[in-house]
């Protein structure tokens, strides 16, 4: 059916309308309210209330973009790198640190020394102030107490290879992504690549179950489909809060210690609202936000001791890990590529 | 013999020509003896095509019965499948299957025949309709006249007892019309089939048969049967 010239012109006009309509807000005079844009790789459920409170307190409107688990943390980080020539975001808030260090390496970040960072431990602040870390989620072993007695529970990662446990009843999230990948890189940094590689090869050889995420590990341990698994404290605390028959074990308290993965926040280079971005970073690093995030259950390990921030508590945990891994975050980050390369060979086949 | 007994058919109000819920075919009754030709004329929308489709088993009557040789073929709510009625149908357009060759189109209805007999029949019908040289072609390689001959050959190949033609010569030039008409009558006679021929053209109808009927608003008015022998 031929379209005549007249119909063509009519249709062209009709075609432009749906395109023009959404542009109208951009053409109107800028709203008087100041704005800050933040890209957030933290669960929206936890981050949104914090950001709303910032809006109420400061009158600065927060425009947030949240990452999703299914994108395996590639979403927002790749967006930030792709937008580097014309950044849209002012602040990046992540639930871990490796992607933040990657952004630093790519030149996406700009230094900002927040006044709030002076009350934080030195190892959580980048020497050049490109990023600041706060709060923490520990990597823990979650056991099903209907299946395992606490006295007989596994105490470290080496127990994942112990023949007394059936491998099909042990689980961990895919070590190619997320905090499990970070944990793998930490093992590479502590034990050396050869030993760490062998550990994961042995895990794969045993047939330990690899699952789609920490929340899946949590759910399966809580349901009794697994005896124990490796997950984060926020997921573990979620199971406890739901009344599941589970208990949390801090792994390797007698040896290397437990890995605690902090949140990180950073200022984006060339962001459209740098002043508002700095204010938001100050707010996120404040003790009150740390306390709020602990009480909401996002992270469980406080950054500040009682001496520096009496309001901060330990949330769902009865106690904190006595021994934590003290390898610098940058060292863990530098092992990431080697770890991912080895793990891809081992697990993606 | 074909017998229609008080056959009616209604279409829904939202049908093709936006009719009210009128009857497309309204209490039609007649019998068609073997080897006779009946010409039905009428204006557009009078129900001629619907009548043919009811006889062919492509529509279900709302009332009445249709019998073939005293065997019930259609009642309200039930129809004998079309391929079991031994009817051939020529539509207004050729309606050839584009993915089948001329030979395959024509031999489609001979699936139940034994191979040898089917081959002999095919040779016969191709010869009669002058399609032997075109047997290997596909529909898009045929002219309009050739396509019509193929559809005629396909309808007659299984030697139907009754041939239904729905304005088969529409849009043909006079020479081709005459040629097709001669072919239709010859081949129909050769298989000994009865013929119901629907047309607008009174002259054309007279060439086919002198037993005529007229459809108007779904009702069929038949002239008395002119002669004991078929036309």
């Amino acid at each position, binding site marked *: *059916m*031929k*379209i*005549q010239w007249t119909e063509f012109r*009519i*249709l062209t006009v009709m*075609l432009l309308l*749906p395109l023009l309509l*959404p*542009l109208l*807000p951009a*053409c109107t005079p800028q709203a008087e309210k100041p704005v800050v844009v933040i*890209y957030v790789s933290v669960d*929206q459920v936890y981050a949104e209330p914090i950001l709303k409170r910032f809006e109420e307190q400061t009158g600065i409107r927060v*425009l*947030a973009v949240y990452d999703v*688990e*299914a*994108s395996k943390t*590639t*979403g927002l980080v*790749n*967006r930030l*790198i*792709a*937008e580097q*020539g014309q950044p*849209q975001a002012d602040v990046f808030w992540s639930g871990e640190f490796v992607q933040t260090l990657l952004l630093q390496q790519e030149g996406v970040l700009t230094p900002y020394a927040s006044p709030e960072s002076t009350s934080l431990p030195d190892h959580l602040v980048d020497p050049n102030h490109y990023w600041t870390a706060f709060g923490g989620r520990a990597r823990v072993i979650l056991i099903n107490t209907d299946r395992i007695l606490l006295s007989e529970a596994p105490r470290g990662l080496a127990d994942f290879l112990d023949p007394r446990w059936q491998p099909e009843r042990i689980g961990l999230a*895919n070590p190619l992504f997320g905090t499990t990948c970070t944990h793998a890189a930490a093992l590479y940094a502590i034990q050396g690549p050869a030993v760490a590689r062998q550990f994961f090869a042995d895990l794969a050889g045993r047939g330990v179950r*690899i*699952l*789609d*995420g920490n929340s899946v590990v*949590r759910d399966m341990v809580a*349901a009794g489909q697994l005896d124990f698994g490796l997950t984060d404290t926020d997921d573990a605390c979620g199971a406890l809060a739901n009344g599941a028959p589970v208990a949390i074990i801090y792994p390797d308290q007698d040896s290397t210690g437990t890995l605690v993965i902090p949140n990180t926040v950073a200022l984006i280079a060339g962001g459209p609202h740098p002043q508002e971005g700095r204010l938001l970073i100050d707010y996120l690093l404040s003790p009150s936000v740390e306390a709020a995030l602990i009480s909401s259950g996002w992270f469980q390990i406080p950054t500040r001791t009682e001496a520096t921030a009496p309001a901060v508590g330990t949330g769902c945990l009865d106690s904190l890990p006595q021994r934590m891994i003290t390898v610098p975050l940058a060292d863990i980050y530098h092992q990431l*590529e080697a770890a991912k*390369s080895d793990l*891809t060979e081992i697990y*993606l*086949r | 013999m074909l017998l229609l007994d008080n056959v009616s058919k209604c279409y829904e109000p*939202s049908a*093709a020509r*936006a009719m009210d819920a009128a009857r497309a075919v309204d209490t039609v009754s007649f019998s068609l003896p073997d080897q006779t030709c009946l010409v039905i004329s009428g204006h557009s929308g009078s129900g001629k095509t619907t009548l043919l489709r009811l006889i062919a088993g*492509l529509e*279900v009557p709302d009332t009445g019965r249709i019998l073939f040789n005293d065997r019930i073929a259609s009642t309200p709510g039930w129809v004998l*499948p*079309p*391929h079991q*009625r031994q009817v051939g149908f020529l539509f207004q357009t*050729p*309606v*050839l*299957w584009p993915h089948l060759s001329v030979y395959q189109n024509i031999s489609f209805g001979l699936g139940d025949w034994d191979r040898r007999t089917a081959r002999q029949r095919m040779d016969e019908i191709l010869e009669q309709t002058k399609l032997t040289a075109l047997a290997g072609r596909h*529909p*898009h390689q*045929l002219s309009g*006249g050739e*396509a019509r001959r193929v559809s005629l050959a*396909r*309808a007659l190949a299984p030697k139907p007892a009754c041939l239904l033609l729905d304005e088969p010569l529409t849009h043909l030039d006079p020479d081709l019309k005459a040629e097709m008409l001669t072919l239709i009558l010859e081949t129909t006679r050769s298989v000994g089939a009865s013929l119901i021929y629907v047309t607008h053209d009174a002259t054309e109808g007279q060439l086919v048969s002198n037993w005529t009927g007229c459809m108007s608003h779904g009702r069929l008015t038949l002239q008395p049967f002119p002669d004991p022998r078929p036309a």
Partner: protein
Amino acid sequence: MPGQPRRPGFQFLWVLAAIVICVGPVALLLLAALRGVIQHPDWLLLVWPSERRARLLWNSLSLSGSVAVVGMLTGLPAGLAIWRLPTRIKRVLQWLVLIFVPLPPYIHALVWLAAAQGINTVLLSLGLPPISLQGWGGTFWIQWMALLPLAVGITLLALQTVDPATIEVGQLLAPGFSVLGRIVLPSSAPLLLSGTGFLFLLTLIDHSVPGLLGLNTYALDIFAEFSATNQPARAFLLAVPGLVVSLLVLLGVQSGIRRIAQPGAQPGAGSGSQSGNWSRRSILHFPLPGWFLVLEQLAVALVTLQIIVPLATLVGEVGSVDRFKQSLFAARSEINYTLWLSLAAALLCLILGWLTGSGLSQSRRQSAVVWWLVTLPLAVPAPLIGIALIMAINHPPWSLVYASAAMPVLAAVSRFLPFATILMAAQINRTDPLLLDAAQIACANPIRRLVKIQLPLLAPGFLAAAILIFSLTLSELGATLLVIPPGRATLTLRIYNYLHYGASAEVAGLGLMLVGVLVLAFLLLVLGYSLWLRLRRVE
């Protein structure tokens, strides 16, 4: 005719625009990959799969091939069963089958995992071994269930392209099963084969379900690479083997599409009336062998299962009406934005698809390359399209567009325009051009011609394209995440966020909302169309 002014080839301008929209993102990625290779020549090795990657590629191809073939083999009898129903029932059923098309595969996976858990409880209590949905088998089952509605929809579309007159002639000469096998299926084969190709492509580029069920696939490897290096160029190079396969499948798909989307019969030959698409004559129920009827019933039962299980599981997970209302209220801004976004994408795709489809259906001389280019986005993973859009638009003078709410609309159009083009070209081809010529003669007012003649004639294609694009946009995630403006979120994004959080009740509520939105959109479109027809007293 002497004195007739010559018009420029303006129709092909829109074909060109469609090619730019469809091929542009891929071209940008290719350029980035070439730049990367020049700087790092060893990257070129990524194009040739290693032994490990070859195994993963085989995993992906075998899974995709199996899902596609089995999907169409089950969709076909189910579609046939619906097609042979009386027209009124058919019109409702054929759209109801499609209501779960927008449900993301990841949600299908979670639904079936929950269902399997329930089944296993029963099996264990009976002392029977539990069923496991992990690995190849589970992934196959879930992808099959997720794509089954699409397979049925494609079958119905394919069967509608068969001229009823050719079926009737066949019925006069042979039993129903013979007509089915020798007339109906060969006539609809091009589109059925194209549909199989589409199912193959959709399975090939999905990594979410295999990831959830522990099956390592090539798509997951690409994602792992992307995650490890954050280099789209490397990910694109790694995707090349899969892309080559996808492009070969597309070649096969588009040859079938061209057959239905370009002018067919020459005068005097070929298959019957071109106005057959307006015939309301229902296909007379022809008797089929008993074993085939059983097969149809089994297929229909499977289709019913894949509607009932997700629906029941989602409703069960929601728990109560109050919780459902709460999750809806909390997501109201996402619901509003998603509705607007899906409507805008559907409208844009319809118009562009009409213009492009019109240009492509004009002549037999349109080359295969043009069709291939227009359908190219179907082979590209969504996140790569998102990255490419950022590369294309996030710099002056387009920054205004990039910062606007239109970006996800553009992402949806980039991904789904091929579907609209195919459907509109097919509809245009099925419509008698003489009908428009007659309107040209009778009516000088172009708007009146458009409203009273063209739109009603093209309405079936419009409806099909509108519902399909609306559904696909509703559930789009990979590209949307990368281009959505700050401060906005879609319903699908919210669902995925809650999935990770483990709020299964909220996820179930929002999943039901997705389905509800589609059913509502379908009802509004179909009822509005029926009302309009009734007012106009058109068939």
